[in-house]
């Protein structure tokens, strides 16, 4: 698995902010009602990658590939079965208190908000539990509502928001603690083209502020436009890791799109 040299050169001298080595995660489930049988599902079978400061790093793969499991381990929400998952050089399982104030995350769709509260009440609450001093909150909230274009509806209940508005409020929530790394798990899920375009611009803006973004998506066009590097995982294993151009060069057809090479890699039609 080789990465294109041009992108690799950008990282010379930089320490990775995320380092994953031979990461494995197995889920134990029970099958049956009376004589319950324990079953193991291997979600990650030993993946390795590094992410450098300021990168937009894409994690692509089919449903069940292990993308969300990887993000949950890195966001300190899930324990790895074995291997290493480090964020800022700290172990994601064991040194989570050092990691949590410096990261934030959005897990797809419209969830992770209190729909019966207003947008403003949501952000005030999350600001409190992220220990942002109350004296700083009014200015911060004004800026974030402006940034995500929800100033005029900030006092409306979240349940009255459209899917795109909820997603933008999630972005504002994730920016409350000025995180150095933002994890975005399928953030454009179910958005219309206008909403998806606005979201892409927001991700570019976040990246322009020097923040690192780890993004999972099923939309190849989105990954193509946004990501500096992309890792493709399938069945819990790393299939490829390279820049977008590097990945496209692996395709067995001329002028291949990212989607073409993704399908070929996942189906094993081309070597990684």
């Amino acid at each position, binding site marked *: 698995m080789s990465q294109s040299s041009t992108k690799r050169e950008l990282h010379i001298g930089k320490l990775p902010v995320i380092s994953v080595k031979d990461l494995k995660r197995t889920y134990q489930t029970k099958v049956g009602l009376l004589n319950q049988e324990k079953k193991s599902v291997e979600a990650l079978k030993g993946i390795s990658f590094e992410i450098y400061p300021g990168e937009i790093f894409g994690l692509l793969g089919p449903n069940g590939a292990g993308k969300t499991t990887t993000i949950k381990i890195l966001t300190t929400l*899930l324990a790895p079965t074995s291997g290493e998952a480090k964020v800022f050089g700290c172990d994601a399982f064991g040194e989570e208190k050092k990691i949590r104030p410096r990261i934030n995350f959005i*897990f797809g769709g419209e969830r992770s908000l209190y729909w019966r509260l207003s947008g403003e009440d949501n952000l005030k609450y999350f600001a409190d539990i992220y220990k942002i001093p109350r004296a700083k909150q009014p200015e911060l909230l004004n800026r974030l509502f402006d940034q995500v274009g929800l100033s005029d509806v900030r006092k409306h209940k979240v349940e009255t928001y459209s899917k795109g508005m909820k997603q933008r409020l999630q972005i504002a929530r994730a920016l409350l603690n000025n995180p150095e790394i933002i994890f975005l798990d399928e953030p454009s899920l179910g958005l219309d083209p206008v909403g998806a375009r606005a979201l892409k611009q927001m991700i570019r803006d976040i990246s322009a502020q020097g923040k690192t973004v780890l993004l999972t998506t099923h939309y190849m066009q989105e990954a193509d436009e946004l990501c500096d590097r992309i890792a493709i995982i399938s069945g819990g294993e790393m299939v490829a890791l390279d820049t977008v151009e590097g990945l496209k060069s692996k395709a067995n057809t001329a002028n291949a799109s990212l989607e073409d090479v993704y399908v070929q890699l996942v189906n094993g039609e081309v070597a990684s």
Partner: protein
Amino acid sequence: MISTFNVLTSSAVQQFKTSIGRPMFRFCVIAQPIIFGLLLGMIYLEKSSVDFTLYAVLGSGLSTFWSSICFSSASDIHRERWYGTLETIYAAPAGFKWIVLGKIIGNSIWGFLSICLSVTVVTLFFDKSLVIAQPLWLGIGLSLMTASLIAIGYLFAALFTLSRNARVMMNFMEYPVYILCGILFPLEMLPKAVQVLSYAFSPTWAVKILRFAVAGGEVSQVLPYVYGLISLTLIYGLFSVVMFNRIDVKCRVDATLEVY
């Protein structure tokens, strides 16, 4: 210290607003005390003023407070899991245990208000005088009971974080506690063997203190119940703290924070 206080108040206010937005919770803290108050008022109308005050007035309030613990404080963790907010509050730097405690305090304020509602309804609807021989002990009893129910809610919240099947247990617990703890009728009507089990639940001890507040007597008679209630509350609290410390590792190993 200030930020922890902010987290507690902010979580309490957030929960206070969110809970009342749910129809089931509104039923628990508004409709149920009215219905229970009216039903128990009719049942105890011909009984003594002490029994009427204890079971129709305070019993209806206490039972709805317990229901709000069952259907909110404990099951809110399950609800947060479905909202997708459990992971966010779990990973927040403020600390999961403080956030959950704040939410339970928020719910308990509603539970306490439901007692006030049932007292008001029963007093207004029935032409029967209420007896409170020891008002100070009524205040002490209600305060200790509220603290104890917060501790129970906290303990169940911990169990809910660790297990996604705890909801079944909570649904099962609602009605037996009304009966076992002497909330709706005297504990002495139960078989002796069952009464032993009753004392494992702090509402039983709280009802004894409330009975003293209503019927009066020597202070020495109520002190064992006060010590018992405080001891049980401390045990629940201590057990909750141990559970919350275990949660930090176990729920990430068992992947119980998420819905799948």
